[in-house]
């Protein structure tokens, strides 16, 4: 145990490890805050779809040899999110199929592009990194760290500022609309924020695992708590704790970061499910 702590202290002296921890905590916070709304609105599939679009955009950016790919990916993902929201409003049922089409399409085209125009020597490693995150969080450039920090602050700010409206619209959209809340605008804000969160999460867990980061903390919190505020706070704290645990474990034991974080989230979910059952049987 003492050995591990000494090792950890050594690692913390390295700037890229500190970057990884900072970005990890912020990403965990944002995705969990958003996750509560997405899960309750039955929107979690949108996160999944958008993460595939982000993968496609990432592939496109690397094929085009764009050095700073994050802004490109961000713009692509935001546009898709807004379009999905608009079409989803016009044709509720078709929204699902459109999303599936776009999401699988981007995945396929992205992989195809990478095969036709291989950007670097090791294609499989590159694809694997983008899909599962592997250790790309440890290779963050300073600009990416700052961009992630800025975006995360904006996301948390928006969430806090609109917290009461987000609750009202998530709980009962038609009441909100009928009594004068501009639900359309808030839905748009939520769509943009989802896109931002997905893009900043990509480096951490990779595009295939982002959904886990969004869904697990919210579902775990909902097992135990029964009001919106408690669920939101619990999801945020839990997500940060799991992510830190995941990153540190993976550095010490040399495991892939993304999957370790998700594993920590799963363990927490099982724990909270158990706690929920106990709480219920005690209160009976």
């Amino acid at each position: 145990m003492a050995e591990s702590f000494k090792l950890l202290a050594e690692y913390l002296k390295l700037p890229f490890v500190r970057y990884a921890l900072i970005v990890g905590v912020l990403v965990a916070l944002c995705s969990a805050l958003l996750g509560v709304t997405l899960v309750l609105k039955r929107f979690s599939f949108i996160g999944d779809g958008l993460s595939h679009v982000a993968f496609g955009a990432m592939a496109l950016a690397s094929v085009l040899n764009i050095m700073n790919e994050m802004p490109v990916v961000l713009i692509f993902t935001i546009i898709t999110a807004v379009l999905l929201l608009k079409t989803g409003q016009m044709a509720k049922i078709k929204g699902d199929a459109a999303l599936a089409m776009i999401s699988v399409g981007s995945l396929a085209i992205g992989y195809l592009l990478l095969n036709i125009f291989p950007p670097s020597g090791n294609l499989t490693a590159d694809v694997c990194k983008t899909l599962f995150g592997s250790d790309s969080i440890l290779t963050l450039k300073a600009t990416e760290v700052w961009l992630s920090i800025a975006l995360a602050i904006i996301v948390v700010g928006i969430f806090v500022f609109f917290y009461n409206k987000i609750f009202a619209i998530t709980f009962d959209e038609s009441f909100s609309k009928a009594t004068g809340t501009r639900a359309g605008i808030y839905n748009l804000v939520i769509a943009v924020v989802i896109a931002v969160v997905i893009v900043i999460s990509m480096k951490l867990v990779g595009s295939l695992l982002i959904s886990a980061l969004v869904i697990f903390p919210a579902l775990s919190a909902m097992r135990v708590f029964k009001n919106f505020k408690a669920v939101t706070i619990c999801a945020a704290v839990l997500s940060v704790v799991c992510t830190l645990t995941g990153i540190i474990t993976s550095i010490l034991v040399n495991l892939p970061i993304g999957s370790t974080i998700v594993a920590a989230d799963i363990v927490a979910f099982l724990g909270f499910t158990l706690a929920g059952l106990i709480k219920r049987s005690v209160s009976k």
Partner: protein
Amino acid sequence: MALLTACDLSIGYDGKTVLKNVNFHADAGDYLLIVGENGSGKSTLIKTVLGLNPPVSGKVIFGDGLLRSQIGYLPQQTAVQKDFPASVREVVMSGFCGAMGLRPFYSKKEKEEALENIEKLGISNLSKRCYRELSGGQQQRVLLARALCATKKLLLLDEPVSGLDPKAAFEMYSIISRLNKESGITVIMISHDINSSAKDSPTHVLELGKECFFGTKEEYDRSGRSVFKMYGGEENG
């Protein structure tokens, strides 16, 4: 000018008309009861008045400076998911959101008002409870308290007692009647099972059907089509 006027309103979905040429108005202080068979378009009418559903033709006019953010609404069904975590207080407070504009947090006054409304509806003991774990009657009271937070002027209620047992229904009707008489809130309520205990409260009646009827309660009783007779109340000659 009337608080709310419907002019030659035709309502429906996606251009398909459900009901044509509805005309009615509600003045401040009125209690308008909307009746009609299932599927006659009562809920659709309310949704059209609220702007949730565009009218096929015709107009809804707000008067007396009434704003959308000053209306309270109790939907027929609130499709709240089974596992939604929300406390009674959180649900009631959310009634203020429409009138808050860009202000992010509830004011002290709003918090006090929410408590008053919770008290008015006799659910103070439930305010920390989880909304989804309440009985149907308790949930309706919570939603009415939320509607009260949204308005001091106009309440639109879509079948507020459906699914409630007779005692809970009676209590709900008396609360609504008191809000109209004592707090001076204009009420527009849909109900098809209005019982004898509530039949004296409405001042106006709108009946939807092949031929719509709109008039005062007395005119409606005299017209001979009154639904109230079916419940064995005294019959007006």
